[in-house]
């Protein structure tokens, strides 16, 4: 969190576990981070890293066999974990909204787009039917859908993927949430549409002074959008810090690996680096550092001790015994 800004969401030592037949999975294991007001936080990690589970944990929507076992989720000063399901239903959609990955399935195919946007207002506002309709049209126009008054009566299948994602964003934004959790919002879209949607989301968030958690596996997306970055590996935070700092000077070998696998537009590049191996089985994590089997710098100590978070100056920390110090070329 940048200095001087109030915090909106503070997650402390969050632990979400799944009690499956094959064993207990620590999907989120002691994660702490803070989202400031008006700030965009990027949550980065590979598939199966526990990114989406964090989003659902915040909203209290973890289904059995999963369970939020420990930690505090302070939203606007109160702990969401202490709230009843009824109270949470009032917060969901109104104060915290979510944008999903696949716009092809995140809209109900049997309801018109208008009904689905309107549903949010009916739940979370006292406006009458005419005012709600005006508000829907305004919102749709705002997310870049032309002839919004006619499009309200269309069904989702009459929209393209990018347009649907605009509708999903409109649904998320219409009740004026303080926090938007965007779970891989552009992964299912064409590359050409991706940056349009990202720009739209950033503008929407900035204009309303809302905050956003952007969950993605794509560091390129995050570097375009986020103020702060949190890198997750096997349900744990391996590194966090302000965007510029973290991207130019990654301290964890995993972050460096992720950055090395993004192609550059300018300059010569011999070959993209890749991180060898795959994410270890979360039911059966190795002793010591989770990343050591894939780490080019691993040493004997890494197999013995699990690294603690160490501070690297203002707002930055890393969980590594041997943090990197070299600066990447821009």
């Amino acid at each position, binding site marked *: 969190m940048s200095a001087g800004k109030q915090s909106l969401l503070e997650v402390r030592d969050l632990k979400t576990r799944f009690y499956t037949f094959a064993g207990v999975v620590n999907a989120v294991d002691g994660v702490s981070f803070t989202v400031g007001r008006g700030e965009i936080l990027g949550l980065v990690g590979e598939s199966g890293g526990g990114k989406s589970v964090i989003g659902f944990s915040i*909203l209290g*929507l973890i289904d*059995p066999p999963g369970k939020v076992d420990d930690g505090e989720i302070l939203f606007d000063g109160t702990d969401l974990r202490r709230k009843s399901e009824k109270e*949470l*239903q*009032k*917060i*969901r*959609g*109104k104060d915290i*909204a*979510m944008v*999903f*990955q*696949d716009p092809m*399935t*995140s*809209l*109900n*195919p*049997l*309801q018109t787009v208008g009904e689905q946007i309107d*549903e*949010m207002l009916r*739940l*979370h506002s006292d406006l009458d039917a005419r005012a709600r309709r005006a508000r829907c049209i305004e919102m749709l126009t705002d997310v870049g859908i032309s002839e919004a008054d006619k499009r309200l009566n269309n069904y989702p299948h009459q929209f393209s993927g990018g347009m649907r994602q605009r509708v*999903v964003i409109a*649904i998320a934004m219409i009740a004026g949430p303080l926090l938007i959790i965007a779970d891989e919002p552009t992964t299912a879209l064409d590359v050409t549409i991706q940056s349009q949607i990202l720009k739209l989301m950033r503008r929407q968030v900035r204009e309303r002074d809302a905050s956003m958690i952007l969950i993605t596996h794509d560091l390129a997306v995050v570097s375009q959008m986020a103020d702060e970055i949190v890198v997750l590996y096997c349900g744990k935070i391996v590194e966090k810090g302000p965007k510029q700092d973290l991207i130019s000077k990654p301290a964890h070998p995993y972050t460096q690996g992720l950055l090395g696998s993004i192609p550059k537009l300018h300059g010569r590049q011999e070959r993209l680096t890749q991180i060898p191996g795959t994410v270890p089985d979360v039911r059966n994590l190795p002793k010591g550092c989770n990343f050591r089997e894939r780490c080019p710098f691993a040493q004997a100590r890494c197999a013995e001790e699990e690294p603690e978070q160490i501070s690297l100056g203002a707002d930055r920390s890393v969980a590594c015994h041997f943090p990197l110090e070299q600066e990447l070329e821009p």
Partner: protein
Amino acid sequence: MQGFLKSEFFFNYRRSASAIIGSALMLVFAVYVAFGPWLVAQNPHDIASLELLDSFKPPAWLEGGDPRYLLGTDGQGRDMLASIVYGARISVMIGVTAMLCSCLIGTLLGLLAGFYRGVIDSFIMRVADIQLSFPSILIALFLMSAVGTGIDKVLIALTAVGWVVYARTVRGSTLSEIEKEYVQAARVAGLPDRKIILKHVLPNVLTPLIVIATIQVGTFVLIEASLSFLGVGVPITQPSLGLLVKNGFDVLFSGLWWTSAFPGLAIMMLVFGINLFGDFLRDELNPRLK
């Protein structure tokens, strides 16, 4: 209406002989069920209007036939055509009502099982499994002999037999629907479970039910006919098609074949029509066959 005439559904309908024959048969029965009392001269349930002298008249085109009784008469002098029309009303009414009850109960249980899973799901589905391991006519027979006979009892027995197929179908579709992000999105939007189930899940699992419901009316007509034939169905004062067959069967070997053959033929045509149309619906509404 204009939209319907131009729809793909109607286009395919016009090209499907089985659909046209099936719906034509259904239409004939629908008309007789709705307007039957005005279409036939006699009310066979009104004993005062019966002429005992006219008993066991053969169909009109046979020797000794009476032009007033097209399909002949039974032992009480009832016009067979009128009996069939009144019987079909009872059969169809029982079939449709029992279908609606089964559909309502089965869909509700299937939604609950699929949405909440866990113990509720296991319980409902085990009951369904046990039920499916018995032939449905056997279950109905057990129930009827336990609770007695009568139209309401027949409805209970048929519903007890029929809900399973809806519950299983709806549960399966629900399981696949709730994985989709729009259901997640509805939860994230702060909708209570009840509204998510009724507004988002239910409309998306209904399509396969239309086919099941159509075919089931035919199945229920048959089961009810079997029960009545075995003597545990509707009371003698409200004879369904099945009971007419049974009544005629008693005198079948005396050569008075028309008293059971024509009601039997009516059952056959009714169920045949429903099944033909059901098959067409199944092909039309199945996205995988498109």
